[in-house]
C-alpha cells in the first residue's frame, strides 16, 4: 500500500498501538476486519501528503503466457512501488488481492467495493501492469 518500508512500519506500529489502547478500554469493534480497515485508512491518509506519481500514458495490454517470466525478473520492491502508485481504490484492491489472504467477499467488505468494481479494478490493473512490464522488460518464452 505504501511502497515505502519505513512509512509502512510507522503505520503498522501506530495501528497496533491504537488497537492496544482500544482493547485496554474495552472498545474493540466486533467486526472481523476492523484492524485492516483502520490500517488501510491510515495508509491512504499518509499517502495524501506524499508526492503523487504522474499518470503514465501507456496503452493497456492483454495478459500473456510470457507474463510470469517477465514478473520473475522484477524486484519485489518494484512491484510494491507500482501498486502503491496506483490510485485508490485500485491500490487497495490490488494490495488486498495479491496479498492472497482474503477471499473476494472479504475484499469487497474491506475496500467497500461492489463486485463489478473490484472485477474492473483488477482486470484493469492486470492490463496496466502487463503494459508496464512490456515497456520495462523484454518478453522471454514461458517454459
Amino acid at each position, binding site marked *: 500500500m505504501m511502497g515505502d*518500508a519505513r512509512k509502512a512500519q510507522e503505520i503498522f506500529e501506530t495501528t497496533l498501538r491504537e488497537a492496544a489502547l482500544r482493547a485496554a478500554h474495552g472498545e474493540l469493534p466486533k467486526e472481523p476486519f476492523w484492524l485492516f480497515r483502520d490500517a488501510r485508512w491510515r495508509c491512504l491518509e499518509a499517502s495524501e501528503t506524499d508526492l503523487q506519481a504522474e499518470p503514465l500514458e501507456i496503452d493497456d495490454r492483454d495478459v500473456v503466457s510470457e507474463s510470469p517470466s517477465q*514478473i520473475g525478473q522484477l524486484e*519485489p520492491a518494484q*512491484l510494491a512501488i507500482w501498486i502503491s502508485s496506483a490510485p485508490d481504490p485500485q491500490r487497495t484492491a490490488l494490495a488486498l488481492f*495479491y496479498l492472497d*489472504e482474503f*477471499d*473476494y467477499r472479504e475484499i469487497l467488505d474491506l475496500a467497500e467495493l461492489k*463486485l*463489478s468494481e473490484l472485477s474492473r479494478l483488477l482486470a484493469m490493473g492486470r492490463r496496466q501492469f502487463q503494459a508496464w512490464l512490456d515497456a520495462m522488460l523484454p518478453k522471454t518464452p514461458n517454459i
Partner: protein
Amino acid sequence: MNMPRLSRRQRALANCAPITEERARDRSMRSAVFRAGGSNEFVNQQSFDRAVAALVHAIPIPPETAEWFSTKDLISPSKWTWKKTVRNPAVLAIGIALVVIAGVLVFQFVGRLNDFPGSATARNLLRIAGSTRSVLLDPVSADAGTLSDLFFMKHGLEHYDVPAEFADFRTIGCRVFEDDQSQRVAQIWVAERRMQFFLFPAQRDAKTGAVLRFPGWRYIRQEGWVGAVKEHNGVCFMAALPGRERDLAPYIPKTKQ
C-alpha cells in the same frame, strides 16, 4: 481456447478468481472458475496472478514487524461464543431433538410411576371399554354382586367377585371373553354413568407362578377412560368410566392406595 460465454456476474467473479484454490469458498465462485477454467485467457490470468502473488510474498518485511506474525496467523479465526454456538442451526436442531427425547422419557417415566402388576392388561381393557357397545353383551338385569355365581356356574371362573363397594350397582349386561393373551375376562355393564366392570386374572410371576399382589386401589388412565383396579384372591377387579380420576374417586373407599 477462448473464454466461454459467461454471464456478467460470472465474468466479474472470474476476474476476482482466487489465486489459491482454498479461497474459493462459495459455490458461485467455484462455478465461475470451473466455466472459465479451460480458456487461455483465464489460464494466463491465473499464471499472472500467481507470479504477482509470489513476488508480493517476497517483499521483505522489517524484522520488527515480522516478529509480530512469527507465531500468529494474519487473521485469527473468529471465536465461538456460547450465543453463536446456540444459534448454529445444527446445534439448535440437536438441542430441540434432545429436549423432545428428554420430554418423551420424562412422560414415560411419570406414566410408569403408577404402574402395578397387571396394569398392561388393565390399559388394554380400558381400550376395549371405549369400543364396546351394549349390544355385544348378554342382557342381565341384576345386582353386580350376584354375577359371581353366574361366572362360576356358567363359565367356571372362580373368585370373579365384584367388590362390596360396587356390588349393589344394577347391571345392564355382561359377557365373558378371551383377551389377546387368552386370559378369560368378565365384562359387566352397569346403569350408573356408563360404568363398566372388568374381572381378569392377576399377573403372575413368570418363574414361580405366584400371584403378584398389590395393596388397595390403583388408578390407571387410557384414551379418555379411567379405571380403578384392585386385586383379590388372584383376580383383578377394575371399575372403569369415561372421564377423569375425580369422576371415579367418589365410588372408591378412602383407604385406596
